[in-house]
């Protein structure tokens, strides 16, 4: 699973800390999701999409091996 969290953050000019505060998780957890170490739940993915104002499919995309 790949994601465009970094791109969306840059678009909003947000740090990981800002995003973490917006969706109610820790900065380390945002980093873990952003770097692909952890795949978030549907709820958390939808929360991210909501705060970025985009569709969830735009942030998270399946890769060939998924």
């Amino acid at each position, binding site marked *: 699973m790949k994601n465009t969290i970094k791109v969306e953050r840059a678009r909003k000019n947000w740090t990981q800390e800002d995003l973490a505060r917006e969706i109610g998780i820790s900065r380390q*957890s945002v980093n873990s999701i952003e770097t692909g170490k952890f795949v978030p739940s549907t709820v958390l993915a939808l929360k991210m999409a909501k705060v970025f104002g985009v569709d969830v499919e735009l942030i998270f995309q399946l890769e060939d091996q998924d």
Partner: protein
Amino acid sequence: MEQSKKIANRNSLIFALIYGATYLPAVWLLKYRVFGQPISIIIALVPVITFSIFIFKLIKAFSVMDEVKQRAQLEAVVIGFSLTAMLVMTLFLLSLCDISNPGWFGYANLLCFCWLFYFVGWFLSKKKYGV
């Protein structure tokens, strides 16, 4: 939400310290002082009660963690439990071969190994998820 996480974490830490502060003196008293059996049982139960409260608070702290930290904790517990079960099984099998060393692998030591394995698991899962 952030405030409740901090309170839950602080409570679990406080009760961990209270547990430690009751467990070590209880062990010392039961080992080096002679009491009647009813008093000994009461002394032995005090750390059990504080440990129960600590575990309750710890579970509460887990429940307010975000999902990445919950996953890291789950993996830490799985690793800790598996390694402890493996050690106990190994000791049991060795005892069937008349090989045992209560000096290193008594009940008290097993408790220490159990916590040690949990912290090993915690270290590994923290490293894996970067939390």
